[in-house]
């Protein structure tokens, strides 16, 4: 099915609590703010706590029609479970991003994919002092891979505009998020440059 022609499909997956949905919202919102269309669908395992969560983002120049992902162009897995469950959905030639301080995946036919290992937790802790910001670091890495479809400012604007049930993120948290994002972006840019 020809879904890949005019849109980018990103599948983010990890442990509930890894901030997967937040990452998906950042990417989707950034795209929307750039005049693209984007859809984010979220799936959880049945457990209320401790299960996996998955966020599928589709970004399209025109309108996104079929809102679900049958095959991903970009796949992020922050846990071994996520990797085992959904790596099969990554298309050949797709980009695979994983959290390298959490696990080391054994990738079948690794040469068919662009693989980016990211020590995101470490980067987050170094830059912001908070391991939790690991998800935003990974958003940075994914952004670097998608540039110029998604622009750096859009993500920063998305972080600033992000609201939660109880209102906006407070400014210090916003700034920490932005720092983490930029660190991820730098890491990704460097890594991709290194790959040539």
């Amino acid at each position, binding site marked *: 099915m020809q879904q890949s022609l005019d849109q980018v499909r990103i599948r983010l997956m990890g442990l509930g609590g890894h901030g997967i949905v937040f990452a998906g919202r950042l990417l989707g919102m950034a795209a929307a*703010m750039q005049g693209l269309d984007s859809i*984010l*669908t979220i799936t959880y395992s049945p457990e209320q706590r401790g299960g996996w969560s998955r966020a599928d983002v589709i970004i399209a120049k025109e309108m996104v*029609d*079929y809102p679900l992902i049958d095959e991903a162009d970009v796949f992020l897995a922050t846990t071994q479970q996520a990797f085992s469950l959904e790596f099969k959905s990554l298309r050949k030639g797709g980009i695979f991003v994983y959290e390298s301080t959490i696990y080391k995946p054994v990738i079948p036919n690794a040469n068919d994919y662009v693989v980016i290992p990211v020590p995101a937790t470490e980067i987050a802790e170094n830059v912001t002092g908070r391991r939790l910001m690991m998800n935003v670091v990974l958003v940075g890495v994914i952004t670097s891979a998608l540039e110029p479809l998604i622009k750096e400012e859009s993500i920063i604007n998305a972080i600033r505009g992000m609201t939660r049930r109880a209102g906006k993120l407070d400014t210090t948290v916003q700034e920490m998020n932005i720092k983490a994002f930029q660190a991820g972006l730098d890491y990704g840019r460097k890594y991709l440059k290194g790959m040539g």
Partner: protein
Amino acid sequence: MPTVAELYKKDLDKLLKPGIHFLDGNTATAEGAVTAGCRFYAGYPITPSNEIAEYMSYRLPQVGGKFIQMEDEIASIAAVLGASAAGVKSMTATSGPGFSLMQENIGLGSMLEIPAVIVDVMRAGPSTGIPTLLGQGDILQAKYGSHGDYEIVAYLPANPQEAFDFTIKAFNTAEKYRVVAVVLSDQLVGHMYGKVRVPEFDEIEIVERPKPTVPPDQYLPYDSKYLVPPMAIAGTGYRVNNESLTHTDKGYPTTDKDASFKLVMRLVRKIRENEKEIAEWEEYLLDDAEYVIVSYGSTSGSVRRAIKVLRTQGYRVGLLRPKTAWPFPGWVVENLASRGVQKFITVEVNMGKMYHVVREFSRGVPVEHIPYAPGYIPDPDYVMSNVKKVIEG
């Protein structure tokens, strides 16, 4: 028609700002309601509509509205009708099982002609079904669920943007015609995040219910001289009997033949005579289509993708997407039928609901249904292969 900018001057800074947002369908619905002037919400938790209640409980107090979680769905819709009778735009949100429980009072809303909005985030059924997954099985229930003759309006959003827009429309239609308006969202629309553009406040038009202009002694609550009689608000001195029994113009119960018939006729006519004004639909590649797929809500996205691919393979297919289930744009189907369309194909997540409605208007042109009800929307491959089967016989 007044706009949001004129009507809610002091609350403008508390409304969702014009511009681009990235919201889930349920939040978009709730924000649409707040923008439309909804200031009362009563509901009972039910998956997958919970986000609407949760969001309203957070949002309504900010704009001077009130939220209550009632003891069940029946109480919720009753409270919504009560609040609307007191002059406050009100809504509730629920899903299939709760919608079933609300049916009796949808009849009450129709009979007392109290404007109200019900958001039904459809889930898989029957009975408790699959709470976390979608279905599109409530289409006919929305219109025929309550006993007796009445008409409602039902919108079918397909994405968060439409969830926002159609909720505003639902409020406007409900107020304009004094009917219960339903937003038939579904689990996927409710839970997916998408781009929502909020128009400038002076671009959003708001309709308010007709108000009586005559003094109380000349006022008839159900004046059959009007199609939509002006509505007296409780506590404004009109002191009228709002009667759920079949009633006269004055609001007194009656078993009189003429008075009963006149009332029921009016309840139905006010929508039927305005159906062209209310009904909305989208046509996609229909101009030269030989095969028309009728689909709506989140399913229509999958169908649209399938049509794109089928077109590249030389099939002349197009999409008719009703944006209002009720009133159904039957004349569009009729026109297509008389234009020489070969077949209508309905694709929905049920075993054939809108199928029956399309058949009603298809003028002998065959209508085929592609059944699908596993809790998910059919993927484009499924639609394509089945549409091919239908076309090739």
